[in-house]
């Protein structure tokens, strides 16, 4: 049922990306993209549970290895003594919250993404790309990041020696702006983008003003 709603959205938007009906056989981090474009806490949250400490340990180490974050800083965000709450949502989406404040989320068993509010506080935990000014308003409407917005003069991609492969979680900075506007997952490697220069480059996962942004307390 959850998958059906996902594919319906995909089709109605006429996108080429097929939503996989069977997420069980093909776990993917962002199969059901734009997960927070429409998200109503009352309808989409299935339940909340505290996470077992053994699993918490797993999450902690996964975050430490995938984010650019050290133990001490993570300790600040999520003290060892505190146990986080797992908020189960539709479409295999899991939000992890501490004291009711969402900290990070995960889709199926993909990578962990920080929420934007958390990311704004610790802007170094994910690699950055920058989009040009023209792209901002599309991003804020929930569109994916297309190559030209990153490869044009206003955009910025990491240099070749720091290239990011496809599938990396990244944050979008915006031209002339101080704070990140969204978080997404790379669909193309940065070097590939510089060559192809069209099509979807980064799928946006969450952005300023989406429904996750609106949730300050769960």
């Amino acid at each position, binding site marked *: 049922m959850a998958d059906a709603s996902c594919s319906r959205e995909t089709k109605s938007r006429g996108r080429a990306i097929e939503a996989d009906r069977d997420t069980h056989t093909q776990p993917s981090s962002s199969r059901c993209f734009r997960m927070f474009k429409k998200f109503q806490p009352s309808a989409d949250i299935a339940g909340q549970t505290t996470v077992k400490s053994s699993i918490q340990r797993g999450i902690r180490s996964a975050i430490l290895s995938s984010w650019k974050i050290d133990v001490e*800083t993570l*300790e600040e965000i999520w003290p060892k003594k505190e146990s986080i709450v797992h908020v189960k949502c539709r479409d295999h989406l899991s939000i992890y919250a501490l004291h009711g404040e969402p900290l990070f989320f995960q889709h199926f068993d993909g990578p962990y993404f920080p929420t934007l509010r958390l990311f*704004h506080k*610790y802007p*170094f935990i994910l690699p950055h790309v920058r989009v040009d000014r023209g792209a901002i308003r599309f991003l804020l409407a929930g569109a994916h990041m297309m190559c030209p917005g990153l490869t044009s003069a206003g955009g910025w991609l990491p240099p070749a020696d720091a290239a990011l492969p496809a599938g990396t979680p990244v944050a979008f900075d915006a031209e002339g702006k101080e*704070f990140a506007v969204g978080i997404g997952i790379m669909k193309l490697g940065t070097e590939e983008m510089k060559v192809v220069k069209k099509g979807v480059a980064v799928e946006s996962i969450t952005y300023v003003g989406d429904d996750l942004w*609106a949730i300050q307390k769960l």
Partner: protein
Amino acid sequence: MATPATTADATPSQPEKQAIPPVQMFYCGVCTFPPEYCEFGDSLSKCKEWLQAQHPDLYDKYYSDVALKAKLGTISQEAQSKLEEDTAKKEAKAEAKADAARKKKLASQVIIKRIERNKRKYITSVRGLEAFGVDLKKAAKLFAQRFATGGSVTKNAAGIDEIVVQGDVSQEIYDMIVEANDGKGGKKGLDVLKDVLVDNIEMVEEKRKKDE
């Protein structure tokens, strides 16, 4: 773009590892965006007003002529004017929407209905609280606790959620709502019921007419 490179580099070199302090974030009080993104929201003029009143220094940073010119960046003039047009349109739309919502709220009614169940036994149903942003579940729990009876949220025949409380407590519920909204803050626990317009409460009785 905060300085990711410097902060990340600085940490490992320190002998005593210290947690990197979080960036103090400041968000617009109107649209909740970081203020630099207000221009993409749907309440730019309100955001501007708010920022100018609350944080004039920041207002200068984001909306002074120099800042406006600088932020144009690589975007073309037409694109910029189109963007501004869009923003204005969006703003008007959002305003109309908010206005409609307000009107709807003013027009919506809370109906407290006393239903005769069995000669001298009654149940009370409360409908329409959700239009005032009341959490029905919480309100039902509050009623049940207050009157020490059963109280639950049920779907009625039309498929709309309503609160059903055992016993004839219509007057008490009315009083509770009045108390929650009398501006004195009311008793503890009544917060759930605040924001309900007392004038819009209607008391109805099903079947036999009796004096309230």
